[in-house]
């Protein structure tokens, strides 16, 4: 077992059309036994980073070390890492047993008996002992996924690398495997880097998450920090579902002036925007409160659409005096007067209804209008730290 250090790593692909900077000066320290989740939109370089660690891709510059050893140029077969692929990459002609034994046979000098014993043990741990003699094609997706994990586990590697290992499973199975994987990693204590672009996986699985965008590391920290204290607008928008509401606002004295509404600044906020002309204003859907009377931080809104999810409702709101500019056209952009809020499933609002929605000053985030850097994050004072009610 060992920690993994990624130090100023850059990866440049030479393409026919020029260079593609897939990873741009990324540094991450993964502690021993840590479970690090790597998230980011498609094409941001997650796989590339993982593959560099695995030795499947050269490192253009920077160093990757496992423990004290620089492994930049170590060939994959000499590295003690195991990788779980999105496609599972099981060997279709070998039985489950063969798949699991392969790595041990190739990379260790264990006797057949020892290998067999380890395979059986790991298979039992993964509850696939009764599948050992089947071929991958005779397994369901979930079972294949288990085998792929089993194949990695049996080798008892120093590092697990997982590239969207659950992406091919359906939601129920994914939820279940997610928990299993977490438990497993805890039990085995193997340093793990886990790539996903699934919100829930990112938030729930890792000790820390690292958010990449465009090859650059945006933030690294524990999930709740990233959620509540995003380093920049990208992170704030990327993490959370439904996504944070953003509005471009100008700073005018003690208030923020947007295209459709104004928001008076409290002292704390005022200090944050000091000396700026424009900011991006952010509020998470679950922080918008319904009811009460209109006030400086409470706005009259019309309920546009309600998406009931049972346990919660997603409510699309629009400022009451807004013209309906958006008709039959579907739009990728959020209009400057539309809010998304979530409320408990037990509360109910109807589309068309008018309500008052409060945007509490304690809950808002402010970002630099150009760089997107966070200049003010929500206060966590009213986050309960012990069982409530």
């Amino acid at each position, binding site marked *: 077992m060992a920690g993994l250090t990624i130090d100023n790593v850059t990866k440049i692909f030479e393409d026919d059309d020029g260079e593609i900077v897939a990873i741009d000066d990324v540094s991450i320290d993964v502690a021993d036994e840590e479970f690090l989740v790597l998230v980011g939109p498609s094409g941001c370089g997650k796989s590339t980073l993982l*593959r560099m660690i695995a030795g499947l*891709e*050269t490192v253009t510059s920077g160093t990757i070390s496992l423990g004290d050893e*620089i492994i*930049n140029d170590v*060939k994959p077969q000499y590295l003690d890492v195991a990788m779980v692929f999105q496609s599972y990459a099981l060997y279709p002609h070998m039985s489950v047993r063969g798949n699991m034994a392969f790595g041990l046979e190739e990379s260790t000098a264990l006797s057949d008996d020892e290998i067999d014993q380890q395979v059986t043990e790991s298979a039992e741990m993964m509850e696939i002992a009764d599948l050992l003699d089947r071929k991958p094609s005779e397994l369901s997706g979930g079972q294949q996924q288990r085998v792929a994990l089993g194949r990695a586990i049996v080798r008892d590697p120093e590092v697990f690398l997982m590239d969207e290992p659950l992406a091919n499973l359906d939601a129920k199975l994914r939820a279940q495997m997610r928990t299993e994987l977490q438990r497993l990693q805890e039990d085995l204590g193997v340093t793990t880097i886990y790539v996903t672009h699934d919100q829930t996986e990112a938030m729930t699985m890792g000790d820390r998450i690292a958010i990449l965008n465009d090859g650059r590391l945006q933030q690294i920290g524990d999930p709740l920090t990233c959620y509540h204290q995003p380093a920049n607008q990208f992170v704030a928008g990327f993490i959370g579902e439904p996504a944070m509401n953003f509005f471009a606002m100008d700073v005018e004295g003690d208030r923020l002036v947007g295209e459709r509404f104004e928001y008076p600044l409290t002292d704390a906020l005022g200090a944050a925007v000091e000396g700026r002309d424009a900011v991006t204003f952010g509020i998470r859907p679950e922080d918008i409160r319904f009811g009460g009377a209109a006030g400086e931080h409470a706005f009259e809104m019309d309920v546009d659409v309600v998406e009931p999810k049972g346990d919660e409702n997603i409510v699309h709101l629009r400022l009451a005096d807004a013209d309906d500019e958006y008709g039959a056209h579907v739009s990728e952009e959020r209009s400057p007067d539309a809010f998304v809020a979530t409320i408990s499933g037990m509360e109910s609002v109807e589309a068309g209804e008018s309500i008052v929605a409060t945007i509490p000053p304690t809950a808002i985030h402010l970002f630099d209008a150009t760089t997107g850097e966070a200049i003010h994050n929500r206060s966590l004072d009213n986050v309960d730290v012990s069982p409530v009610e």
Partner: protein
Amino acid sequence: MSAIDRIVDRVRRYRSDEESTSDAPLATDGGHRTGGLDLGPEFVQALPFWLPAGLLVALFVYGAIGWNFLVSLTDWSGLQASYWPLDFGMYTRFFERVFAQSGDHALSWLPAPLADLFGRLLTGPIEYWSFRNTIVLLIVFTVLTLIVGLLLAILIDQQIRFENTFRTIYLLPMSLSFVVTAVFWQWMYNPRYGIINSALETVGLDFFAVDWIGAAQFKLLAVIIALTWQFSGYGMVVYLAGLRAIPNDQFEAARVDGAGTIKMYLRVIIPQLRAATLSAAVVLMVFALKAFDFLYVIFGSRPGPGADILSVMMYRTAFDTSQFAYGAAIATILFVLALGVIMPYLYIQYQRGDL
């Protein structure tokens, strides 16, 4: 292929890594590779796999064709090898004769059988006819075989019973040597008691009951039909695989979009069989090049202007009349011709990353 797949594919394609031991010192080369041949460790690792085969091919295939090219530059005729002087005389001679003819006929763009239906005589230098027939054979045979193979594949793909049996039967002619199939077809084509004309006359198509391998204008067509019979099974197998690789919902989407069966195949399915078409075409052209045996058995070394092809001509020039240099030149031209037909396809294939 989705965009993501393509990216991933590219990742794999360009992946390369460097040889080093695990305790190598810090090895950040700080830069990235520049162009030129990458003779890195992957190249070294791969060598043992392809080099032995490569050497065999280099020696026997390219060595021989190179030797042949050398011979084509000489004036060697007769049984005493001569390797001097070297010039392109044989090629000039060949093309002079080809072009002496080709300009003359308004109908010369038509395949020989068609042109002659319109009354043109098969006269002029045999070089011209061999060259032309070779191209016609190569293209018409390949296209026809692909079409028949595709039709067979579509029929077989209708979830029929005994699929394997049908498939094997259609594939069976491919197992036979040209020597055998040529004799079969000699009979099939006999105008007096051959089954083809009997059948045509039975169904009232007397007009088509011609002297298939006797009349010069039909010889090539007759050869093409027989070869199509022999190899359409291969086309079928390849297309069948191609059809099965097309997701079912393509068929269904077309149906839901209101397309009938024929429209569905023509507009939606067949255009997606490009890869299958290409790979079948390559193999079929190889067969077309080997059609030498077939023609040779039916027509001997002089099929005449109606059916002479370059490989037969080459053979007869070199081995009947000992004009080795001229024969070698013809062989080179044949090789280049085949490459000329196939290389554009391979290039496209390469561009799309499918090679």
